[in-house]
């Protein structure tokens, strides 16, 4: 059997078993109207839920699931990019200059463990509109892990690299561009992956509480308006799948020659 098949066969088998189990556990109650509103949907009902969410309703430009996904992904990307733009340079500075680190690190470490959810009331009070609100929330939830990763990456650069560079008369901007930045990229990238994962988790919570559109809002609406668990489960599966997609996007960078060296070989 080719190794390609080996990689696929186990997870597919597990998924098949789980879906079968799910079907067996939920199918029995499917015809009982008395508990129909609160019972868990069968796999097939979730498929129908997807169909419902992917049907364009009159008066709308795109199906709900598509427009909600676009809204959520856009907010995460906007907030995450802003956080990278500020967090990476800040982290690099903190990693390189001990004084900057001493001055700023306590602040970063104080803000980092605050749950992004705790920022939601502030976001609601500070921003009237959905977009700035959610972008702000993603920004505050991703900038601290990014900054911390970038600072740690620079601090962990093996001394021999810096000494070698110094030996060849490489300093200033050239040292940064040719040695410090490339030496810290793999670890920064790992930080970005983690931060993007956090951002994707936070956007759903933010939209459920503070925003009037997006995947989080779709779940909340399914609960409030229709009470349809099939739509909720379908949306949750979508959230998981997009999460994998976003992670895969960042992981593609790990295969670039200038970055690949920083990761142990994977089987």
């Amino acid at each position, binding site marked *: 059997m080719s190794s390609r098949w080996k990689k696929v066969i186990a997870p597919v088998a597990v998924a098949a078993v789980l879906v079968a189990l799910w079907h067996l556990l939920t199918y029995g109650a499917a015809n009982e109207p008395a508990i129909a509103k609160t019972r868990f949907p069968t796999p097939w009902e979730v498929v129908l839920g997807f169909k419902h969410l992917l049907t364009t309703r009159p008066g709308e430009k795109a199906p709900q699931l598509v427009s909600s996904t676009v809204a959520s992904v856009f907010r995460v990307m906007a907030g995450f990019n802003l956080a990278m733009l500020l967090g990476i340079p800040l982290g690099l500075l903190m990693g390189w200059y001990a004084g900057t680190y001493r001055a700023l690190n306590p602040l970063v470490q104080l803000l980092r463990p605050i749950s992004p959810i705790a920022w939601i009331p502030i976001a609601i009070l500070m921003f009237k509109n959905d977009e700035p609100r959610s972008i702000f929330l993603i920004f505050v939830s991703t900038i601290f892990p990014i900054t911390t990763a970038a600072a740690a990456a620079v601090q962990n650069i*093996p001394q*021999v*690299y810096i*000494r*070698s*560079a*110094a*030996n*060849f*008369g*490489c300093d200033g901007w*050239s040292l940064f561009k*040719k*040695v410090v930045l*490339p*030496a810290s*990229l793999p670890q920064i990238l790992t930080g970005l992956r983690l931060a993007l994962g956090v951002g994707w988790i936070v956007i759903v919570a933010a939209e459920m509480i503070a925003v009037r559109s997006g995947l989080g809002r779709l779940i909340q609406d399914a609960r409030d308006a229709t009470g349809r668990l099939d739509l909720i489960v379908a949306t949750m599966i979508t959230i998981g799948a997009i999460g994998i997609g976003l992670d895969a996007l960042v992981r593609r960078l790990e295969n670039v*020659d*200038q*970055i*690949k*060296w*920083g990761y142990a070989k994977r089987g």
Partner: protein
Amino acid sequence: MRGAQKTFSEPGKPAIEVLSGVDLDVAEHEFVCLLGPSGCGKSTLLNMCAGFESIDGGTIAIDGEPVTGPDPRRVFVFQEYAIFPWMSVWDNIAFGLQGRSDAQRHEIARHYIELVGLEGFERAYPRELSGGMKQRVGVARALAVNPDILYMDEPFGALDSLTRLNLRSQLIQIWRREKKTILFVTHDIDEATQLGQRVVVMSARPARIKTIVDLSGLAYPRDIDSAEYIQARDRLFEEMGVSTRV
């Protein structure tokens, strides 16, 4: 460079005395091995010569000029592979050639890639190379800037014994052709006997010079089966206080 002089004297750091009053003169184009037990402070001494570590007492001078910091005229080859893993073999070897024209860089890099036998690997990245090849990149990168002095800190320490033997004979060939001054730190008695014109035997910490063994009588390439070689090696075993029987 004429009659390069170095004088060390190191009265010691406040906490741990790593080197105590080391005096040594090294001549131009000389190959000198610093031999001592692991952790004795010989690497520290080499790092001070290179300007990576401060000198806390006494002076280290090259051509009468005190060492104040790293300088491309004196290049360090590290035990760990200090070549940059994010750069190709070519870019690593050309790293020290920033100020030169593209044509010059190209010519020099090509020359040293050939010298260390890495033709065909120019576009390869360090992770695709064996340990011995990586260290050859390190040596080529150092030679490319045409330094007067090479500081080598157990450069072959992490390699298997066959590769080590091979690289030592290549190093001797390169040294004789390129006329460099080499200061080579090792804890391997055979390595010191094979390489050095003089072997400086250091004591355990705090390091001082126990004795200097002159091997300039042994012609290169050295025959490691010859009676003279074995005699010289046994002398070093004795100076190191190690038995020649296992």
